[in-house]
């Protein structure tokens, strides 16, 4: 009976859209070409709907939220390149079965709230932005019109890693363990410093436990950070690719009320938290319901 707030699935229309491009990001068959990275062989089964439905049943997931694969860098492309891909993603996502919902995406190279307003009003659960657009005060100031749309509609923001800088000879795990974590760390503290003051009502969810940024709260307090490290009850943390140790550490710092289940399927699976049935229920059901404001959410 769980909710997974973080999955990716490339629908046929989105794959066609990537195949129709001649410059990165593009697909040649199932080989993905990105700027500055070696070609990557995509496993078609990772994006097969029946396979994903079986995966979700196996993990007791009633609802999965899918999102655009922000590390492809689509949101940072010029609008004329970004929107055909985003539109293809949006269309495919809305046509998925009822056990899926989706985060909308948008172009961050030029901020235009109107297509995002239209997308949000067509049934998306909220908006995903790449952490690479949210690293600092300037980043949050640029996207403020988009975050205003979310606040007006009482919809949440999902912050996901964006494209990683190229790194020669790096092993395959490097982007997920170094650049993505650093991006999320910056986005978390930038939200605390610049995002939350301007958007007091926004519910926001940070992927991959915000790169464990909240564990630095003692340093934050020691170096003059304000308000005793008070937990922001509307800043959620999603678990993807972490397990018992990191989730346990995070709950020690921020409590369990802001931790939500995210698998990042097809790249990882839901965690075994070893925190007990009550904690698992809180992470997989109670907290996602509050993040997404679905019926039955527990008020704080």
């Amino acid at each position, binding site marked *: 009976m769980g909710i997974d707030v973080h999955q990716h699935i490339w629908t046929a229309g989105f794959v066609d859209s990537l195949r129709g491009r001649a410059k990165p990001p593009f697909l040649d068959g199932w080989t993905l070409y990105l700027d500055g990275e070696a070609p990557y062989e995509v496993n078609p089964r990772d994006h097969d709907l029946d396979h994903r439905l079986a995966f979700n049943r196996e993990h007791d997931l009633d609802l999965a939220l899918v999102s655009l694969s922000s590390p492809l860098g689509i949101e940072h492309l010029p609008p004329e390149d970004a929107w055909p891909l985003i539109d293809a993603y949006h269309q495919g996502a809305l046509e998925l079965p009822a056990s899926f919902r989706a985060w909308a995406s948008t172009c961050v190279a030029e901020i235009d709230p109107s297509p995002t307003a239209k997308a949000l009003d067509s049934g998306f659960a909220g908006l995903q932005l790449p952490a690479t657009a949210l690293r600092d005060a300037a980043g949050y100031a640029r996207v403020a019109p988009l975050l205003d749309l979310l606040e007006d509609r009482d919809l949440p923001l999902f912050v996901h890693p964006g494209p990683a800088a190229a790194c020669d000879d790096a092993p395959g795990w490097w982007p997920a363990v170094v650049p993505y974590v650093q991006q999320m760390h910056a986005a978390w503290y930038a939200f605390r410093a610049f995002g939350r003051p301007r958007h007091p009502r926004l519910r926001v969810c940070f992927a991959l436990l915000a790169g464990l940024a909240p564990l630095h709260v003692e340093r934050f307090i020691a170096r003059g950070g304000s308000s005793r490290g008070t937990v922001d009850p509307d800043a959620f943390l999603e678990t993807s690719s972490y397990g018992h140790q990191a989730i346990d550490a995070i709950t020690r710092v921020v409590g369990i009320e802001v931790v939500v289940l995210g698998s990042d399927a097809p790249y990882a699976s839901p965690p075994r938290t070893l925190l007990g049935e*009550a904690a698992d229920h809180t992470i997989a059901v109670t907290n996602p319901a509050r993040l997404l404001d679905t019926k039955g959410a527990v008020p704080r």
Partner: protein
Amino acid sequence: MSWESLPERFLDKRELRALVEDLADRPDLWSHHIAFGETGEARHYASLHRDSFVDIWVICWRPEDDTGWHDHDVSSGAVRVIAGTLLESNPRIGGAHVETLVSEGESLAFGPEHIHRINGQAEHSVSIHAYSPPLWRLGQYSISEDGVMRRASVSYADELRQVDAEALV
């Protein structure tokens, strides 16, 4: 006093008791959280505040609500009864458990060595709880029919539900 004026360090049980006593006189901070579920629902609780040094809860109890035996790992705690009466019990191996009624206006405070269990005693009981360091992991105990006590390490989310019937012995 509220949490903003607390020192930036962990609090001991005397300080936590003073905190919950003060919060009892600030219904503006907690009265909107008071709610009692229909029959069959779990007892109602709400997080009032959590920071790096303390977390504060309001809990609404029905007579059938029972935490089971538990400790609070490294946390100290304090409980102030706002309405009604709670029953606190402490396990006594081989004898009758210690039982203490805590009524409206009264409080209890404890260190991390404390093992207890709390029941709602009166209808519509309400209490304010504060813990420092903030709750993280708990020891949850069961005592079998032949008196053997066992401990399970659980997250604090488990304090808010009953475990199996064995734990209620």
